[in-house]
């Protein structure tokens, strides 16, 4: 089978990104991408270019495909939940190292709203970058939005103790049970997503901290610093290793 031109490969990658970022079902997205890939293979063999398939505007073509696909709210919700749980788990396990868990309603609602906003901005930027080439605008917008949301998150942490709102206090037993459930959930999400970056990164973040704080009597701040470096290095390494393995399996 002949290989596709770079223009066609790019179009298919953009289409996949656009559909997934629009909340379309992963299997349905893969089906249409495969069908168009087969079409492009034959079209290019007959001397046609990708524009003969998409027309003058690939962006409009992507939109026309997306408009015929139903949005998979269940899958979108599950993805959002997994990302929220993944981000929150770092906070939860960090807090578990300090003692029983305790969260104010103000903090929980603020945290969920800010992370959800971040994901919505990310989804919009991915859709924009898939349909507009070459453009730095989505990344600039995402960078700016991320900066604002990050500042708001810091504000949330700082103001949490000063704002009066109902607070949920967990006992040691419920804290440990919550931690166990969270870890099992992360393991299950990793198994479903076929990537172990998050659970292993989380372990690399927490285990050194636990050892440094409770065996070597390091301060919490220094231990967090070491945990942060270990977690970041392992997650980055694993991400590139898994990406390379996936590419090798595809070829």
């Amino acid at each position, binding site marked *: *089978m002949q290989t596709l031109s770079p223009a066609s490969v790019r179009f298919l990658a953009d289409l996949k990104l656009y559909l997934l970022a629009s909340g379309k079902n992963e299997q349905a997205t893969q*089906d*249409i991408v*495969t*069908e*168009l890939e*087969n*079409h492009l*293979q*034959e*079209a290019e063999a007959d001397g*046609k270019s990708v*524009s*003969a*398939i*998409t*027309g003058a505007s690939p962006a409009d*073509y992507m939109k*026309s*495909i997306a*408009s*015929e*696909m139903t949005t998979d709210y269940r899958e979108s919700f599950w993805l959002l939940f997994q990302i929220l749980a993944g981000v929150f788990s770092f906070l939860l396990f960090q807090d578990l190292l300090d003692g029983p868990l305790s969260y104010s309603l103000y903090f929980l609602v603020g945290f969920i709203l800010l992370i959800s906003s971040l994901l919505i901005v990310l989804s919009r930027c991915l859709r924009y970058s898939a349909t507009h080439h070459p453009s730095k605008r989505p990344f600039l917008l995402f960078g700016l939005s991320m900066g604002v949301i990050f500042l708001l998150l810091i504000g949330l942490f700082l103001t949490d103790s000063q704002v009066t709102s109902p607070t949920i206090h967990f006992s040691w037993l419920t804290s440990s049970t919550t931690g166990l459930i969270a870890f099992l959930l992360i393991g299950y999400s990793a198994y479903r997503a076929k990537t172990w970056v998050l659970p292993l990164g989380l372990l690399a973040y927490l285990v050194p901290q636990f050892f440094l704080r409770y065996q070597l009597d390091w301060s919490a701040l220094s231990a967090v610093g070491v945990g942060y470096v270990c977690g970041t290095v392992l997650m980055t390494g694993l991400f590139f290793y898994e990406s390379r393995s996936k590419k090798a399996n595809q070829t």
Partner: protein
Amino acid sequence: MSSTQMLKGILDGCLLALIAEEELYGYELATKLAAYGFSDISEGTIYPLLMRMQKLGWIEATQRLSPSGPKRKYYTVTPDGRMELAAFTARWRQLSASVHHILKEES
């Protein structure tokens, strides 16, 4: 009005008619449309239409290996699709006769 705009409403019927004749996959459909004179429309136009017709239950798709190798999605018309094709044919004949009549009168 461009021929592409005029075609929008009738492409569904043309695709149904082609698939009703024989089981076809995407590229074959696009090639056949071009051979019948629909060369102005971009080939990819057929896929959103095929998706919609599948949702409406007019056509069905089955994946299987093609004689040349890769797996392909072959489309067939369902009983509902045949009914829609009959309705489309009747609508088109009436519309075509009316337009033809007007154009003849004008000339």
